[in-house]
């Protein structure tokens, strides 16, 4: 298929772009296969380049022969294009609609994008499992899933207990949702406790058992130790899952383990929550009462609180109780990953570095089979009934931001990094977030055909932009507060386009300036001190000679 077929009108002059808090721009609108471009005729005015894949939905309005297209983006930006001529406007809008909803992944921009920067390090090779898991004795990397035949959503290499052989893994996989047998997610060096994740056990209504599953899970505990199974569903939901062949671990069959149920919302509920929150944030005319009641009704902050609380609980079991933890919900690809990844942020200082965080996203989200393509196919302005899309990853980023706010000096990266990941998860020139699993990525030959986001991020200029000037490495476990008073609305994402951030940006610059000036002075003082020392030692020598 040629993109040209979809572009009914490639170019319109005299288009006016309206954006909140920015002056309007008049110029020429061009449509290409992947971008909507508006460039003004004047010099020095920035151009708008918008990826079609970033467009969530559009609305048309007509006043006489002047048409307006309101473009609502997945990054929550809303812009308006005034297009002279009804036909042009209709053509443009139907072209945008077609181009922003392409079915085939291989037509996406990352397959066409050629980097304009020098790739110093290929991000596709930056985070290999063998580099991460090699040193956990008692654990081994299994190749049982090399051809994705055991579990479609797992990567080729997974870490499992040393004493459990691949045959056992194959058997266990038949007892777990989506074949997701328990694998190692995190190893707590401080006390050797581990966190594992899996899909739900397929006990069904008649209480099916699987000896190999029991063996595997027990093999992860040292004699006499206890473990906790954190089921991200309520007892009721877990009970109901039995009717559909799912279920949960009976304590009788896993005597060393205690089950804890938490109530994390499922994906379609989360999508609804996001839609309501963004709607509330964009409603400019409401009163305080209405804002607070809409904020509450969206349940977004409640979701943040519940996810964070569950992650803290997992971390607490591991660090404070010296117990290992197994986390699962139903599929083990959504709420499970929120919990396991956040718990690592709390426990492991490495995950709070820029590179460590990339590794975490790579391990716990991309390799762990979070279906990014499905979840991020639509954002808050979607008009269709949500099916597979859900802001699971955005909620994770929001939770990280909450911890960052509470420990502003403990993270090597700043808020921009989280915002960047949000943007790229939904629309990107990089291939990193394409596909739903490692199997997909391999089938699409992403490493060969697209550029990795990490290749872009791990360049000195970008690293500098994303780094937190307040960072001082801290090896402690950091326990966030989950009180409602402590959890804030993530303005940097949800109010980003609704208010001017000038004053807050200036404050940030001021902070950077204070720190940089201090460093500069330190360098000066040090060099003068050296100079002084040289002078002092020279003098007596001169005297003696």
């Amino acid at each position, binding site marked *: 298929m040629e993109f040209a077929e979809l572009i009914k009108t490639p170019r319109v002059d005299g288009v006016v772009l309206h954006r909140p808090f920015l002056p309007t721009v008049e110029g020429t609108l061009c449509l290409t296969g992947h971008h909507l471009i508006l460039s003004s005729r004047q010099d020095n005015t920035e151009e708008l380049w918008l990826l079609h894949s970033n467009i969530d939905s559009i609305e048309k309005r007509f006043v006489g022969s002047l048409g307006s297209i309101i473009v609502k983006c997945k990054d929550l930006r809303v812009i308006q294009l005034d297009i002279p001529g009804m036909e042009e406007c209709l053509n443009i809008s139907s072209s945008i609609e077609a181009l922003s909803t392409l079915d085939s992944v291989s037509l996406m921009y990352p397959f066409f994008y050629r980097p304009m920067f020098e790739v110093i390090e290929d991000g596709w090779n930056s985070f290999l499992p063998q580099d991460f898991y090699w040193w956990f004795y*008692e654990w081994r990397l299994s190749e049982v899933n090399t051809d994705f035949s055991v579990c479609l959503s797992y990567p080729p290499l997974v870490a499992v207990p040393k004493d459990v052989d691949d045959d056992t893994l194959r058997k266990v996989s038949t007892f777990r949702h989506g074949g997701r047998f328990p694998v190692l997610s995190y190893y707590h060096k*401080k*006390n*050797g406790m581990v966190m594992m994740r899996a899909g739900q056990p397929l006990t069904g209504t008649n209480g099916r058992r699987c000896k190999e599953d029991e063996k595997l899970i027990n093999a992860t505990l040292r004699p006499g130790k206890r473990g*906790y199974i954190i089921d991200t569903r309520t007892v009721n939901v877990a009970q109901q899952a039995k009717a559909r062949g799912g279920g949960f671990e009976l304590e009788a069959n896993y005597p060393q383990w*205690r089950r*804890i*149920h*938490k*109530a994390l919302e499922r994906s379609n509920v989360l999508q609804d929550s996001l839609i309501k929150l963004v709607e509330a944030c964009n409603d400019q005319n*409401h*009163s*305080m*009462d*209405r*804002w*607070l009641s809409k*904020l*509450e009704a969206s349940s977004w902050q409640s979701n*943040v*609180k519940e996810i964070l*609380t569950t992650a*803290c*609980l997992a971390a*607490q079991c591991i660090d*404070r*109780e010296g*117990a290992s933890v197994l986390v699962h919900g139903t599929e083990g690809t959504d709420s499970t990953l929120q919990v396991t990844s956040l718990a690592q942020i709390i426990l492991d200082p490495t995950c709070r570095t820029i590179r460590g965080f990339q590794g975490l996203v790579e391990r716990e989200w991309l390799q762990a089979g979070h279906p990014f393509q499905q979840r991020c196919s639509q954002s808050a302005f979607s008009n269709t009934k949500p099916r597979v899309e859900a802001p699971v990853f955005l909620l994770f980023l929001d939770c990280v931001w909450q911890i960052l*706010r509470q420990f502003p*000096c*403990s993270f090597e990266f700043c808020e921009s990094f989280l915002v960047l990941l949000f943007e790229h998860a939904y629309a990107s020139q990089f291939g990193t977030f394409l596909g739903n699993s490692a199997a997909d990525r391999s089938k699409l030959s992403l490493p060969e055909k697209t550029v990795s986001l990490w290749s872009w991020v791990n360049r000195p200029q970008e690293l500098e932009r994303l780094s937190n000037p*307040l960072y001082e490495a*801290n090896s*402690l476990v950091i*326990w966030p507060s*989950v*009180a*409602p*008073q*402590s959890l804030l609305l993530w303005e940097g994402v949800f*109010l980003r386009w609704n*208010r001017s951030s000038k*004053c*807050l940006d*200036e*404050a940030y610059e*001021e*902070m950077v300036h*204070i*720190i940089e000036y201090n460093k500069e*002075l*330190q360098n*000066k*003082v040090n060099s*003068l001190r050296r100079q*002084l020392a040289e*002078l002092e030692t020279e*003098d*007596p020598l001169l*005297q003696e000679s």
Partner: protein
Amino acid sequence: MEHIRLPKVENVRLLDRVSPRRSRVGTLYLTATHSIFVVNEAGVRNETWVLHSLVFSAEKQAATPSGCPLIIHCKNFQVLHFVIPRERECHDVHLSLQRLSQPESYEELYCFSYKPNVDEVERRQEWDFLDLKTDYSRMGLPNSLWKLSPVNRHYKVSDTYPADLFVPESATPPVIVGSSKFRSRGRFPALSYYSKENHAAICRSSQPLSGFSARCLEDEQMLEAILRSNPCSDFMYVVDTRPKLNAIANRAAGKGYENEDNYSNIKFQFIGIENIHVMRNSQQKMLEVCELRSPSMSDFLEGLESSGWLKHIKAVLDAGIFIAKAVAEEGVSVLVHCSDGWDRTAQVCSVASVLLDPYYRTIRGIMVLIEKDWISFGHKFSHRCNHLDGDPKEVSPVIDQFLECVWQLMEQFPCAFEFSERLLITIHSHIYSCQYGNFIGNNQRERIELGVRERTHSLWSHLWTNHADYINPLYRPDHSQTQGLLRPSTAPYSFKFWRGLYNRFDRGMHPRQSVEDYLRAIQEETQQLEEQLASHKQKITQLEQEQGWSVTWKAATCDKSPTVRALGNDLSLANTPQDYTDGFITNSPKAPDDSLILQPQDSSQTSEPSFSNGSDQESGIADLSCRSPLSEDSTRDPDSDEAAYSAA
């Protein structure tokens, strides 16, 4: 002392507000001025001091097998939940505290017995630190348009107004006196703020006694005079800060608002800020939400909404913005009033001043502003803050709302204020603490009768002495954000809940690392570096000049000694897990044993700070210090690890 029925109770438990199972046992002492709770744990003495005048209420609950609960709510939003072993003792402590916290006469207030180590000369100088005349002359007054009027010298015209007032040059004493007779409590229109640049002014008064049709020629002349004092403008605003309905209701009582037909060239405007009773109830509701034990997000947001608190804050700020814009952008003078002109009027005038004038965003400026628009213009501090045992219906958090408006602005303009949140919180505490004389009484006349200047200390000079503690590190006088009129966003989502004040004592809720402290430490270090740099440069030039001379410089002790950046410290202060396990206990009723995880045994997550026993007994305000729980942990955890490793 006669009010203390029981000076000492042993084995008292102080419960932790966040997780009640963590508690500390100690001894409770009652002194003439403070309740002191002393804990001795493993040889570490930990004291919690609570000033009696900060106690808002002491509530004794029904006795339980473990003792008799006594809950103390403080005016600085600290809540202390004691359990006293015997009901009899609890009863005595309760009665004593009730009496001690509600003095019947001014003489009993703490400021009259507070004697820091300061000699009389210095004490007198404290009161000279702020002089309102300096502020008026900073505004360029008196000038050809405005004059200082002696008409209220002896508080004869209005006994709640200050002695020194600025009025239009053309306002003669008969006009002023005539106008004052037509205004509630004689509070005639007087100048609050004057803009040198464009001559626009903010004046304030009480409501006119207009009833349904009454007029007063002098009052009309007075407004005319205000209008004429602004040569560039042909009209002025009269802003009634009350909801229209309230103002209309006042007409039946012979009060009311200005009729546009009777006054030449005024534009009349209602701005609906609710009355003191609505505000009192609203804050009470909000505080109940703050005190909920492990509330869900919905509990909190619903409670915050139904308290209406942020709505009221928005109303005050909206009113301030209206006036500031009239003055700065339109160059039009404004007369502001409410009913008596000492609550809403004070709020709105002072908020407008903060928006208008960068000076009021400095440490000295905010003190001057409070001194002017609140203290001197007769905000009834003693009634509103319940300094004495009085009419509970007179109590209202009007000044809290002003401080919060300033805080909301600081959140939107992080570089525009010289001071940090800490200054606002400290001022808030001392408005209620009665430790300093500034806020005692209801107006200037009362303070003179009480001899406040002669017998007490002034907060302003105390704050100024320590002003380094209150500096906002992001402030720069030459920053663009600092200049001119502030134009805040008033979209509802721009207003935040002020955790720093209302949940101030719940340490666990606050960020565990403070950017502000970090930057302040960096700046201190920078200052030292600048000095070192200068001295090194000097020495090098000297050395270079003294070639051939034998000079032995002792290496300067300039090893980089970074000021403790308070990070590690801060972190260890409160970095313990919270109670994350709520759902766990309830969801698994079959739990074999309750001892389980998740109740970290360290009892030391101090959510209420303890106050050190400083020499000046600065209770309730300064010096937060609590013990680090991390040391404990690091000894506890390895034990279990060891067992695990050896077993493996």
